[in-house]
């Protein structure tokens, strides 16, 4: 693992949220978690912008799209937002991109080591 960074996992499924936290922590990253867009906004307010954010789209209380609108992603250039969703609906993904998300990953495709590789890739691009 090359670099360690602050990562925010925004995922409403408890088991997946747990898994991503464990995988990323094991590689030495500093991981925060949120279970909805609303919680994510609160975490960011308290802890500041993460370097990388894994953002689910379909979540209760506040979904990923609404989060992107409120967070105003283009204003936070230091944060790379990866849409991490199992809904491969083109329209939704396009909307997320237009709101400042930079990558899209189908959750079902990303095994633990792929998740780490994606984060590593982003971090080395930032160097």
């Amino acid at each position, binding site marked *: 693992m090359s670099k360690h960074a602050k990562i925010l996992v925004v995922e409403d*499924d408890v*088991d*997946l949220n747990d*898994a*991503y936290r*464990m*995988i990323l922590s*094991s590689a030495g990253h500093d991981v925060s978690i949120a279970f909805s867009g609303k919680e994510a906004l609160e975490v960011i307010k308290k802890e500041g912008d993460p370097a990388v954010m894994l953002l689910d789209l379909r979540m209760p209380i506040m979904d990923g799209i609404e989060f992107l609108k409120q967070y105003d992603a283009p204003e936070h250039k230091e944060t790379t937002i990866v849409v991490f969703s*199992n*809904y*491969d609906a*083109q329209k939704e993904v396009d909307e997320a991109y237009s709101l400042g998300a930079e990558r899209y990953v189908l*959750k*079902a495709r990303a*095994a*633990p*080591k792929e998740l780490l590789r994606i984060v590593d890739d982003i971090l080395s691009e930032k160097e």
Partner: protein
Amino acid sequence: MDLDTSKKIRVLLIDDDEDDYFIIKKIINQIPHFPFQLEWASTYDEGISRIRTRQHDLYLVDYRLGEKTGLDVLKDAAPQDRSEPFILLTGKGDRDIERKSMKLAAADYLVKGSFNADLLSRTLHYALQRKQIEEQRLQHLVELNRSKDEFISIASHQLRTPATGVKQYIGMLMEGFVGELTADQQQMLSKAYESNERQLRIVSDLLKVAQVDAGKVKLKKTIININELIADIIREQKSTYEQRHQKIIFTPQSDECAATIDRDSVRMVLENIIDNASKYSEQDTTVTVVTKDDNSQVRVEITDQGVGIPLSEQIRLFEKFSRINNPLSTKVGGTGLGLYWAKKIITLHEGAIHVRSKEGKGTTFTIILPKKGQIT
């Protein structure tokens, strides 16, 4: 269910005889409360162009129309695809014409000179009413089909989340997150992982098919070099071929095979067929891929030395859920959706996909893609 009687029902008569028009107008005006408004087209061409404007509720079509006949009108207007009924008129009772007109989806048939206001009124009203019921049934079926597609889509998406969870946790175990595993443990987990991957693939296939069936696939077409695309796919599948002790040879017969396609979907089609070629072949066999550019189209041929497909099964190959029995089909365990989807995608490109095969000898899939097309 009542027809709306507040406004007049517009009837278009297509008839080359002016006398017929006056006679029918007279009869129609004898119908109590004057529910119908009659208009007249005196030639086949005028009739067809006025049918296209879709301003009428019902058509009366004379059998004799100069060089054409009323049956030609039915053929060209396709009443089965329209919500307005067509009624054929003829000079004398002719069973043959009657049968043909019914086959061409005419709603009814009237013999000129043999109907009065009462019969005409009843015939027109019944034809309208029947068509209305038919429309409602059709609408109901369309809605039913839509809710089926929606159900498949929602259910498949729901299935993905728990399977993704399984993938993460088995993945963590296999990658040693909680300590070293014995060889047996590793092997069992690897089987569980693969089973789960298969389940995820089925979910993806179901979603892709539901999308294409619902007409929701939007092609983003650009000019793509098919040779590069195939070389890339082969590079990706190389290790799989090596693991199975198989060879894959790519022979482009033209330098550049540029076609106007949606890269992602055509790539998935080619990936699927190149992967199938390996899966349905034994060890120590070779798969060859040949591409050729002739000015109007790009042709891709993928040939294996595999188990082959019996002729009787070849026609079912591109059908939904078709599983062909062969010595390797249980081992491969596909969904029967890949080729159905492939055909749909290639057809959307206005291309073609064919199969030639001999049992025990091998199979060739040919994909033809148009070179030119609108970039979207």
